């Protein structure tokens, strides 16, 4: 009899540990409704940026394409004409395609880009049903015209971006405290039809 009571004590002792977890904070992130706050330098879906005056940052130099270890980026450049200037500088990207299935999100394109045109956003929801939908071209990569950042360099050939070398300053548009919603990138991501994932 005494031994049985002793066993009950052991069970209660064990269950007290289980019960104690009821008062601890739950670590679970209720994913579809609450999204995890990723690190500010999280490598997610790409984005092609513009200058403040809506000109494209990409100058079609193909450095991202040659830096890419997975050969996921295709850039076909074309010459700007004086009537229709797509980017400051001589050239722009007529076609810019990233195969997101082949991409390994290493960020080497971001590092190689001389004008900070291609960046990796915190967006992680990229899964899809069809293989063909993973070729992201300019219509899905390029931000809307009113979402440009930074002052464009002057129009002379050989003009350099005014914010060249201040990559860190531009990248800090991600606000860690507020989540995506407070960031410049997040504003673009919220209105999905305008820019990314169209």
């Amino acid at each position, binding site marked *: 009899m005494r031994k049985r009571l002793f066993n009950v004590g052991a069970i209660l002792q064990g269950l007290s540990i289980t019960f104690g977890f009821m008062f601890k904070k739950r670590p679970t*992130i*209720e*994913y*579809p409704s609450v999204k995890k706050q990723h690190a500010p330098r999280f490598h997610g879906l790409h984005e092609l940026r513009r200058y403040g005056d809506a000109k494209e940052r990409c100058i079609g130099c193909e450095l991202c394409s040659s830096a890419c270890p*997975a050969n996921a980026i295709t850039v076909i450049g074309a010459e700007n004409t004086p009537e229709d200037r797509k980017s400051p500088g001589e050239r722009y990207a007529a076609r810019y395609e990233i195969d*997101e*299935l082949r*991409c390994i999100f290493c960020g080497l394109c971001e590092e190689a880009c001389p004008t900070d045109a291609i960046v990796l956003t915190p967006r*992680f*929801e990229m899964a899809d049903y069809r293989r063909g939908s993973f070729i992201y071209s300019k219509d899905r990569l390029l931000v809307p015209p009113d979402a440009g950042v930074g002052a464009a360099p002057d129009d002379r050939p050989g003009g350099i971006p005014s914010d060249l070398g201040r990559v860190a300053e531009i990248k800090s548009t991600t606000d860690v405290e507020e989540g995506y919603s407070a960031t410049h990138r997040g504003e673009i991501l919220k209105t999905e039809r305008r820019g990314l994932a169209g």
Partner: protein
Amino acid sequence: MEMSPGHFLLARLDDVARWAQSTSVWPLTMGLACCAIEMMTVTSPEYDIARLGSEVFRSSPRQADLMIVSGRVAQKMAPVVKRLYDQMADPKWVISMGACASSGGIFDNYAIVQGVDTIIPVDVYVPGCPPSPDGLLYAVNLIQQQIREGGRGGILARS
């Protein structure tokens, strides 16, 4: 969809069955490479795939509904993957997780299958190297959505 009164009960039963199926998608324990680490992380308390009813990773293909191909598929592993897929009972679904499983990734060489969809039909592709665990949760959500809409899995061709 128009329904005659005689079909009412069967249609409702079908909805219930789909709901039950979509909330109990049991994955197969099949980690092939580093993506498997993220696949395991999905079962951790932080992401907790049990909320979606998929926490039971089955070790036998006979009891699994979902194959998460997590990692690069070597040419030598390809027959095994195919065999495991064939052993799974219908209906079955496949998630191709990560760049290597989906397209070969950076391993464009003789040893790696260039996309697991060359050997088995894939329902959802997840890009990333590896995808974040919540990226995989999103893919499981897509699978659930497909089941609720009546998809049987394995019907989407390579496109």
